[in-house]
């Protein structure tokens, strides 16, 4: 439960700043995507720099997470096709809505209820993705089994 409450608290902090910085305003996102305003790019860049330095400082000092005692560590991933394919799709949806998963939640909190439609869509989208994933995994399994028996 402590971890969940930590998540809630940090979420509140980030949500507050997202709102304050205009990230939940589709007009701001549109200006960014039209390359009219560097505000969001600069914001994200500075976030990445601060988070990068902070994470490395924690790890270098063998810092143990306050709630779990777990040593601060992480793994990184090699790029795969799904990162490109999935992100292209994501980018398409993003250009249509001028909002994305984090900001849409913030937007709803600010009272912009139309965000609920985009949010509902995201829930549907992740659900469909899981179904597609299961179907394509099952298909691969069947293929593998068929190839196995073909070798006999």
């Amino acid at each position, binding site marked *: 439960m402590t971890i969940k409450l*930590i*998540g*809630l*608290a*940090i*979420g*509140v*902090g*980030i*949500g*507050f700043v*997202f*709102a*304050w910085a205009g990230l939940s305003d589709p007009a701001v996102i*549109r200006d960014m*995507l*039209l390359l009219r305003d560097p*505000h*969001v790019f*600069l*914001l994200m860049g*500075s*976030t990445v*720099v*601060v988070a*990068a330095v*902070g994470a490395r400082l*924690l790890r270098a000092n063998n810092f143990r*997470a306050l709630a779990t005692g777990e040593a601060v560590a992480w793994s*990184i991933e090699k790029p795969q096709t799904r*990162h490109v394919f*999935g*992100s292209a799709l*994501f*980018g*398409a*949806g993003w*250009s*249509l*809505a*001028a909002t*994305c998963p984090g900001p849409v*939640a913030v*937007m709803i*909190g*600010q*009272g*912009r209820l*139309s965000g609920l*439609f*985009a949010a*509902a*869509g*995201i*829930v*549907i*989208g*992740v*659900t469909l*993705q899981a179904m597609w994933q299961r179907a394509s995994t099952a298909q691969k399994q069947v293929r593998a089994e068929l190839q196995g028996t073909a070798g006999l």
Partner: protein
Amino acid sequence: MTWTIAPWFIAGPLIGLLIVALRAAANKPFGALGGFVDISESGWSLSRLGFRSYLLFGLLLGGAIFAVASGSFSLSFAYPDYGSIALASPVAQTVLLLIAGVVMGFGARTAGGCTSGHGMSGMSLFSPASLVATATFFTTAVALTYAFALLGGQS
């Protein structure tokens, strides 16, 4: 009584610090997509919602607190005419938002993260997958936003 928009050099580092705080407190990465995945898988049983849902709900609450504090809270179904695809009918705009959401949800889950997960957290960890994902969704989004604006005769 609304606040002026936070400058990037204040908001950006603040978010960065909060991401570090999450690391320090729970060794968890910040991301928004996970909450939606959790909601999708929880079968709508609130007691089964985990950390990622709490993080997402926090974002919502943070938005609400900001809106109240800055006197900008306002319940409305309006969505700004952002010019990508200008739709006259509110019903059409609603359907568009829904479809956009579905595409984002499907795409982000395939990619394993969204703007926050890959663009902020993943990038800060120098994850090659996040670099590729971020470059891809930014390029796609910018290109399509321009295309839609040109098609719509607006900019």
